[in-house]
């Protein structure tokens, strides 16, 4: 630290300049520190603006893992499913946790209806009354090939779900390879899903 040579070293006359230079360094250090903090803070805010950085991200460590073991009862109009069903698949499938009481989930339905043309989407009704969930799908359209009911919300906890809507892409064999805690009606989320699908050739 004290070895730092600032430009003022060369300008100031030698002899008694030593003390002065050190003082200048000491006065300059907080300014440099403030500058570094400012730049870091600015970068952070810029990242929050573009969506590349979100301090509220939970980053649940779910990707790269096999699906947790679970059994879901039928949620009309679809049939429930288990972990074994997911592991037996030979093609990727998107698991989507939703609820009729969740406005972002309803907003996401159109995007899901588009996605299900490319790959099957299986739904999990999270802490929802079966009648209400069925009502939503009747009203908004049903993007799900199969639907399980997680009334207690316990299966969602095993998946690391913190709030609906949440989606998981399951690779053949039952491995979670992509996860989003935001709705698919978001361009950035959709781009992430596209990239992952391309990567596995789906």
């Amino acid at each position, binding site marked *: 630290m004290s070895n730092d040579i600032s430009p003022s070293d060369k300008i100031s006359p030698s002899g008694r300049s030593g003390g002065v230079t050190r003082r200048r360094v000491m006065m300059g250090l907080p300014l440099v520190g403030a500058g570094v903090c400012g730049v870091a803070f600015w970068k952070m805010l810029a990242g929050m603006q573009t969506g590349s950085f979100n301090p509220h991200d939970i980053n649940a460590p779910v990707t790269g893992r096999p699906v947790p073991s679970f059994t879901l009862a039928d949620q009309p109009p679809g049939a429930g499913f288990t972990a074994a069903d997911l592991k037996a698949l030979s093609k990727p499938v998107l698991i989507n946790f939703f609820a009729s009481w969740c406005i972002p989930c309803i907003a996401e339905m159109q995007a899901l209806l588009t996605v299900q043309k490319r790959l099957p989407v299986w739904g999990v009704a999270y802490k929802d009354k079966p009648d209400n969930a069925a009502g939503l799908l009747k009203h908004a359209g049903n993007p799900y090939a199969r639907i399980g009911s997680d009334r207690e919300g316990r299966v969602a*906890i095993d998946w690391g779900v913190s709030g609906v809507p949440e989606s998981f892409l399951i690779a053949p064999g039952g491995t979670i390879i992509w996860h989003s805690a935001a709705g698919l009606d978001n361009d950035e989320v959709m781009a992430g899903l596209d990239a992952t699908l391309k990567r596995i050739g789906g």
Partner: protein
Amino acid sequence: MKTALRLRRFAAPFLVVALTGAPLVALAVDDPAEMLPDPKQEARAEAIGSQLRCLVCQNESIEDSSASLAKDLRKVVREHVAAGESNKQVVDWMVARYGNFIRLSPPVTVATLLLWGMPVLALVTGLLAAFLVFRRRPQVAPLSDAERARLDELTRGR
């Protein structure tokens, strides 16, 4: 001025109660039916839960939060405690699902090294800065011969 002083005298006890007592009251779970019958186990569950982040509110523990997910997680904690699991086992169960984010006090890892090391780092930096400043008090250089001669010349008249 006098009224302000009086106000302060009366406000102080309220503030003390509000600042120290309120969090203790808030820590209790919403519904007594959620609590474990064994007070020892309940105390342990509360201790674990108060160190787990509510993933909905994010700056509250699951013991403080009234979010539905927090309630579910409280229930899970109590089930595990009642089953005789250790505190570490319960926390590990949560971390396996939600990552270290769920822990209100993060473990020491490469990513949190700066966070945990900051008090020591700040102290060392401060001591170093103080040492550097005080070691080298501004020293007055001795006068050169020319300066001394000029000084003599100036003061000779007196």
